[in-house]
């Protein structure tokens, strides 16, 4: 760019010279054609010759000048090719070199460059004028003084835009599409897969098309929303406000409050969105205890990171726990039935009818490359199967991750994640004592998975699932069948914005009082794309 400017500058006087010389040349050239009428004298010809000669000399001199300048530029070999942003002032390096002959010092390497560093930093630098050589400043790379940032006080964030793709915006927006092609030996895949965003039928599935928004609300709050569209097995679109909440950013004492519709911070997997999962489907224990859509609801949450030398956080939330997203709690169930009881579906009578969700998590670094995160969670509330029937779920989770100290793109890594849950469910007499028996179910389950990112973009995974449902001679609900599952998968992430995954599941459903044993094989081909500015994911 600079070269072009300089060459233009060099050519400009040349053109001017031609323009000035042109009129006499033009008037002389017609001369031969009119020679009969006005024969030129020998003196005229000589004068013309001299004129032409001097013009030629001028042109030669100018050509030489242009050549010299080009050579000087080549020597300096600056921004021309390197694609520096356009910069009107002449290259400081070229300047240093052209200045050098007049000075006594030989041409040296510049130590300033105003094309990269602003002039405001220069005064501090000017204390060392001795260097006539390599520039030590460069305004082409440093544009403005660092002190300019301090002028934007906290109040400026009121109008501070969020950057998307180099532009300025007030929020990040993204669209995530998650699809699966499924085959299963079972004709009722929707009964085998326990998650609402899992493949639900043989053939193509579009269970999670998600719009995500996030950004700073003002200096005090951040806002998040996840709106999910899913296509049911008849291709009808269902809309789900999966999450929509605000949270504080500037409370003292490491406190944070959150309010709105959000996923409960129960265990590792529940608070995350399906597209971040390492498998194509929900672990059995999550789907059967916390619910097909996970435990989430309208509520409020406070969290506190303890002032300890390691990461330690206490989280406490309360949600309505009503409906299918409060699955084991105030859930009226499909067609008003849950675990065979006619449900009560009533308004909250008091605090005991809300779901209370505490969590305590701690993390340690075993080494520079190994991290452990362990947590315990609980969810306590009432359920709709009787007048005073209650549910308690306890969880423990462990994450171990190793990542190479020479990781490229986050690979290679090994990640081991396990969650264990125990549920105590008091199944009552149903609405108006319509069910003859009250039972207390002690159910438990766990999953454990290992992911190995063996090569940039490639992850192999294996997962084991088990759920023990207490057998009952009174309740024949399909969800009350003890079962286990083995899954293996291979995922290719072309970039962090797309993935293709092949997964194989083998399910074993155990015989109980009402249901016979079953064995099911399933294969899923899952694919995903992300458009836009999707928020970075937590550890």
């Amino acid at each position, binding site marked *: 760019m600079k070269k072009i400017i300089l060459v233009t500058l060099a050519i400009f006087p040349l053109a001017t010279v031609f323009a000035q010389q042109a009129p006499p040349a033009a008037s002389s050239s017609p001369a031969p054609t009119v020679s009969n009428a006005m024969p030129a004298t020998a003196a005229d010809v000589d004068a013309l010759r001299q004129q032409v000669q001097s013009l030629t000399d001028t042109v030669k001199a100018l050509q030489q000048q242009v050549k010299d300048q080009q050579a000087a530029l080549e020597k300096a070999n600056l921004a021309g090719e390197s694609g520096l942003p356009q910069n009107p002032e002449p290259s400081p390096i070229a300047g240093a070199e052209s200045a050098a002959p007049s000075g006594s010092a030989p041409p*040296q390497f510049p130590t*300033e460059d105003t094309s990269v*560093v602003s002039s405001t*930093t220069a005064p501090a630098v000017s204390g060392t004028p001795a260097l006539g050589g390599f520039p030590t400043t460069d305004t082409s790379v440093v544009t403005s003084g660092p002190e300019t940032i301090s002028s934007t006080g906290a109040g*400026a964030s009121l109008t501070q835009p969020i950057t998307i*793709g*180099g532009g300025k915006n007030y929020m990040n927006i993204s669209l995530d599409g998650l699809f699966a092609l499924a085959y299963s030996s079972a004709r009722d895949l929707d009964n085998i897969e326990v998650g609402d965003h899992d493949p639900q039928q043989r053939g193509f599935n579009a269970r999670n098309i998600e719009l995500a928004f996030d950004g700073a609300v003002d200096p005090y709050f951040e806002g998040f929303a996840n709106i999910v569209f899913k296509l049911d097995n008849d291709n009808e679109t269902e809309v789900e406000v999966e999450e929509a909440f605000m949270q504080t950013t500037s409370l003292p004492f490491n406190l944070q409050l959150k309010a709105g519709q959000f996923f409960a911070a129960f265990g590792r997997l529940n608070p995350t969105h399906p597209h971040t999962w390492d498998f194509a489907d929900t672990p059995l224990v999550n789907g059967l205890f916390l619910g097909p859509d996970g435990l989430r609801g309208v509520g409020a949450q406070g969290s506190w990171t303890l002032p300890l030398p390691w990461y330690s956080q206490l989280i406490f939330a309360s949600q309505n726990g009503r409906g299918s997203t409060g699955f084991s709690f105030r859930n009226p169930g499909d067609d008003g039935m849950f675990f065979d009881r006619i449900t009560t579906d009533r308004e909250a009578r008091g605090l005991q009818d809300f779901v209370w969700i505490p969590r305590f998590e701690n993390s340690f670094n075993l080494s520079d490359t190994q991290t452990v995160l362990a947590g315990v969670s609980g969810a306590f509330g009432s359920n709709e199967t009787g007048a005073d029937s209650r549910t308690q779920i306890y969880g423990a989770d462990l994450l171990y991750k190793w990542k190479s100290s020479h*990781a490229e793109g986050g690979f290679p890594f090994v990640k081991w994640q396990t969650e264990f849950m125990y549920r105590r469910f008091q199944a009552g007499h149903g609405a108006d004592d319509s069910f003859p028996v009250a039972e207390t179910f002690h159910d438990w389950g766990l999953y454990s998975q290992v992911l190995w990112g063996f090569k940039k973009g490639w992850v192999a995974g294996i997962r084991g699932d088990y759920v023990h449902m207490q057998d009952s001679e009174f309740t024949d609900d399909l969800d009350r069948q003890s079962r286990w599952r083995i899954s293996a998968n291979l995922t290719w992430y072309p970039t962090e914005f797309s993935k293709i995954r092949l997964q194989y599941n083998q399910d074993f459903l155990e015989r109980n009082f009402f249901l016979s044993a079953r064995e099911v094989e399933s294969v899923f081909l899952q694919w995903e794309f992300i458009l836009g500015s999707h928020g970075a994911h937590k550890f």
Partner: protein
Amino acid sequence: MKNYFRSQVVAGIADPGNRHHRCRLQLLAAALALLPLVASAKLNVVATLPDFGALAREIGGDKINLVVLAKPTEDPHFVDARPSFVVSLRNADVLIDGGAELELGWLPPLLQNARNPKIEIGKPGRAQASQGIRLMNVPTNVTRAAGDVHALGNPHFTVDPIIAKAIAQHIAQSFSALDPANAAFYDANYKKFEAAINAKLQEWGATMLPVKGQHVVAYHDSWPYFAHRFGLNIDIFLEPKPGIPPSPSHLTEVIAQMRAQHIKAIIVEPFHDRRIAEKVASATGAKVVEFSQFPGGLPGTDSYVKLIDALVSRLAAALK
């Protein structure tokens, strides 16, 4: 301090039958209460990347507690947001980050969790290195079809010593604003660093002069600032697009280009697949040169000057 705290914990719980138990618990409570006070004796500085960390060390010396989040040998685009980083950020008086979206994949959730108003953008406790730097290769059109493109421009700028000086000055200003008692110390350290770089630039410039104008192949487009400073052309990459792994067809093209232009060196960083570079090198007779953007990424480069020393001498030797 950490050990002191641990010993208190152990003392408090190891012998519950002890009649001094309650007294020890009080001690523990006192220790907990004192934690922030003890911590505030020195500036707590967190640098996202090791290059900013090295500059902070030049300026802060023993007057700061420094934590560097990313390792010098790992890919700075993908660093795990480890929970321990939340603790470091929560306790930070100063956060030095690039400000050019290099840490976009991992810093935002950490900051969200850290809940530390002192290091918000706009506060003196937040030094963004790219502030005042004119970034190169700002895309006019941002599309992910072009690979991992940084919308604000190429964020690998610290390897230009002139830019490093500006960042160091920026850091010195930030430290001085938060710790005025030691402002003279920080300023003197900056002056020292600046003088060292100015002197070293003569040396580096002289070493690179004979190889000026040469073309060099790099694995990833991390080197436009280095190339600009020393008059090199580092514009052919083993990655077909930033962040996209090398494909056989692209490598064939690179090999043809390298042969045509007689390119003598391929630079790779510690986290790149060296075998791919070796293959291309053996097909073209070029040398593989190990490079790093970060002090500590190459053996014997624990300071910024030592890093550039190593880069300059390695490349000059390979291009001879």
